[in-house]
């Protein structure tokens, strides 16, 4: 039964609401463009000269901000791509001379080389199991390796001297100023639109909680690699412009020191705020040029001290600090994004086979060296079953859940979800088979609004736009039910970090249900919930199983809760299945009592009294 779209938050029409920020950006961009256009008439030649260079550097700093501030990867390596762009131009013009054909070749070489190198670096840095530190290490090694290659290139790359004397674009200084200034504005506008869009939300989600993203079916490695390639190409084009302007390509433009300077600029200007990165870069470049002759050491000392102070005390940079101040002053609370409308998605056409087997585990074992945590676990579960996994601490329950959700975890045995073997697939692929996992500690995206969290959860089902923020949030009926019954529906615009514990748990559940899974894995979902919340939760779960025919596997300690909701109970003890049966069979079994209390049962045969 198709639900009518329900509107929450009535104010102006959806159109003006979602385009208001775009309008603001457009106006700002036009004002800036006008300033750029008039700049050369107001400023003197030397300043114009410095600003052209500063603008190109600002574009590179912007890419660092996107990677670091917006998606959480600290990178020292954007200078390498800047250098690749610049050297591509220099090498092509030195070898082939200057002309329109050569210019096209140079652009092609710059972009092509960058894509290859960035792809390689991305593959090396972002793989399932990599840490942010490793990615930073690789980004650090990249410019060093590149510069060494430049040094060893003899006359082809100019070695330590760099390349000079090649003919380059013959634009006037004013034309260069307008070109570079407009390039900065264009990049700012494009990046800010892309990041504000629904697709851009995913980056913030990855920065906040990479694991949750994987378990929502997002291949975070692939997203990061794609992002790196895009950022690298933009940095390379900035370097292309820089060298095209100065007609000198020097190894210093591609090196590690320059890469760290970009990070310093972003940190000081405002990590995560795009305009902050640009301002930081321009201010530092201009000030360096003027002050490095008169106060060379003092200036760098000031920058160094400011940098350390900002990192320690004001991680958001100067702009971030201003923004926090503004927020505190305005006391707008936690509302972040534009209001949304909820809609229920259509049910998929194929009705699930009546109670098919969706989970088959056979001979599953997990050991760490000689320590065996799980040993020859075998069981099956059908749709419409609510299976509780119980057992004392250390029995291996969470490990079992991990082995079901991530194909690389188990040591032996096989697992089939909805008829497909999970082999060694990573978590995001298994989500695609129909598995949803909810963590013990509510795993959501702290700085995203409730609506955005849910939107990210729907990314697998509906490709998000790179341009717009959709005012409509489509959820399957089950997820929508959770959102409405828990009261989240009133808090759609609030940031997740301000929710109560119970609401966070509900949000996570809604997110997982938004995946429309066939199998739901829950790890101690009632821990910390009030009695009323637990009751509500029980109703939700039983409803899910009855109406949607989900298969739910739940780890629980609260035996009353277990008895209330389960259709089946599996008891784990010391890594093995001790009992697997209906509620009646298991709950009063003396073996269970023995396992939990450690004392032998009075009746040795284990017959239920």
């Amino acid at each position: 039964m198709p639900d009518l779209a329900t509107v929450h938050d009535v104010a102006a029409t959806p159109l003006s609401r979602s385009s208001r920020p775009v309008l603001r950006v457009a106006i700002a961009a036009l004002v800036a463009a006008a300033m750029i256009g008039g700049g050369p008439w107001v400023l003197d030649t030397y300043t114009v000269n410095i600003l052209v260079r500063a603008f190109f550097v600002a574009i590179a700093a912007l890419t660092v901000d996107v990677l670091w501030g917006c998606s959480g990867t600290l990178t020292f390596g954007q200078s390498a791509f800047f250098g690749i762009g610049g050297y591509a131009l220099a090498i092509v013009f030195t070898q082939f001379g200057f002309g329109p054909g050569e210019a096209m070749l140079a652009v092609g070489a710059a972009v092509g080389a960058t894509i290859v190198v960035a792809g390689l670096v991305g593959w090396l840095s972002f793989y399932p199991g990599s840490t942010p530190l490793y990615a930073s290490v690789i980004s650090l090694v990249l410019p060093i390796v590149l510069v060494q290659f430049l040094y060893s290139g003899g006359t082809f790359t100019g070695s330590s001297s760099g390349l000079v004397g090649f003919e380059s674009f013959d634009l006037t200084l004013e034309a260069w100023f307008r070109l570079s200034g407009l390039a900065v504005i264009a990049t700012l506008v494009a990046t800010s639109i892309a990041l504000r869009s629904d697709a851009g939300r995913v980056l913030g989600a990855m920065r906040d909680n990479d694991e949750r993203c994987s378990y929502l079916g997002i291949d975070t490695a692939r997203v990061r690699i794609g992002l790196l390639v895009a950022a690298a190409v933009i940095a390379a084009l900035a370097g292309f412009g820089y060298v095209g302007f100065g007609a000198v390509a020097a190894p210093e433009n591609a090196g590690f020191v320059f890469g760290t300077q970009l990070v310093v600029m972003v940190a000081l200007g405002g990590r995560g705020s795009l305009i902050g990165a640009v301002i930081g870069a321009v201010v530092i470049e201009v000030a360096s040029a003027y002050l490095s002759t008169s106060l060379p050491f003092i200036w760098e000392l000031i920058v160094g001290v400011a940098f350390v102070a900002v990192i320690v005390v004001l991680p958001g940079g100067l702009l971030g600090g201003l923004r926090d101040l503004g927020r505190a002053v305005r006391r707008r609370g936690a509302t972040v994004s534009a209001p949304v409308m909820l809609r229920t998605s259509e049910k998929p056409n194929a009705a699930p086979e009546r109670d098919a087997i969706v989970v088959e585990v056979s001979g599953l074992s997990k050991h760490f060296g000689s320590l065996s945590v799980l040993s020859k676990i075998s069981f099956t579960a059908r749709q419409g079953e609510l299976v509780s996994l119980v057992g004392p601490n250390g029995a291996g329950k969470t490990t079992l859940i991990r082995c079901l959700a991530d194909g690389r975890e188990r040591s032996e045995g096989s697992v089939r979800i909805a008829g497909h073997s999970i082999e060694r697939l990573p978590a995001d692929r298994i989500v695609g088979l129909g598995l949803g996992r909810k963590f013990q500690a509510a795993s959501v995206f702290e700085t995203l609004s409730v609506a955005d969290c849910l939107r990210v959860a729907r990314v697998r089902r509906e490709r998000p736009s790179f341009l717009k923020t959709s005012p409509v949030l489509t959820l399957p009926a089950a997820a929508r039910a959770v959102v409405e019954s828990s009261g989240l529906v009133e808090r759609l615009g609030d940031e997740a970090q301000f929710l109560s514990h119970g609401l966070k748990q509900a949000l996570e559940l809604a997110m997982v249900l938004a995946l429309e899974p066939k199998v739901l894995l829950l790890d101690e979902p009632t821990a910390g919930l009030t009695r009323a919340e637990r009751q509500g939760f029980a109703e939700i779960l039983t409803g899910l199983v009855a109406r949607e025919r989900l298969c739910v596997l739940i780890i629980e300690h609260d035996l009353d809760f277990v008895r209330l909701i389960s259709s089946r109970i599996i008891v784990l003890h010391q890594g093995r299945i001790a009992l697997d049966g209906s509620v009646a069979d298991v709950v009063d079994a003396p073996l269970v009592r023995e396992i939990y209390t450690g004392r032998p049962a009075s009746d040795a045969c284990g017959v239920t009294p």
Partner: protein
Amino acid sequence: MITLALDIITTAAILFIVAAGLLIVFGVMKIVNFAHASFITVGAYAALVTSRFGLPPVLAPFVAFLAGGLIGAATERIVVRRLYRRPLDAILATWGLGIVIGQLVTLAFGREVQFVPAPISGTLAAFGVDYSLYRLLLVPTALVIAGLFAGLLNGTRLGLSTRAVIMNENLAQGLGIDSTRVRLITFGIGCGLAAVAGALITPLASVDPNMGLAWLIGAFMLVMVSGGSLLTLGLSCFVLGGLQVLASTFISPILGGLTIAVLAAVALRLRPQGFARA
């Protein structure tokens, strides 16, 4: 052939001396001290000052240790202490600190390149080949340093507390070990050791405010690969340093400089265990 072997052994010794301080800080405090480069520079300038004042050159490493240790302890108190929960930010803050220290050194001593005369010059006829005596002496120096630290770690109360903090800081604190003091002392020692390295390598090269930088990345990669044990560090220095010498000799000195960084990055991709704590 013999020369090559001696090149490898002495290079490994030099790398070990330079990287040991960084390893100690990383192992105990789980953060990477990117100011390490500037402490190497501090040590080099300490050696310069020692020679300017006419003191015997053998005192230089001790003066350096004192200078590095005190400055390191001060920076730990003021800056580093607040960043233990933010390891990536710690890298950045220590890098910024490095810039600050470098600029202060430049203000005090000037930007130009300066030189410290070698305390011991000449060659030793070793295994049929004339080899630089100073380089050869760095090998036993490296072993002494390693021995001192192993002794400190395993044979003293401070060492015991440090090992406890490494294994499980919360538990150590719960047992009454002042982990703040342990961290302060460790950071001071790590920086002091960096300064000693700086003082020891100046006779082979030159002294300028940015000299430490060239050593930082190599040392950093070696520490990452070794994961936290002095023994593995020694081994990594030997293997990677040896490969660097071989690459420099048989391929080109320019590409040889890359060897450590590239091979370490690859090794970490294959065996990230070195990162287990990050």
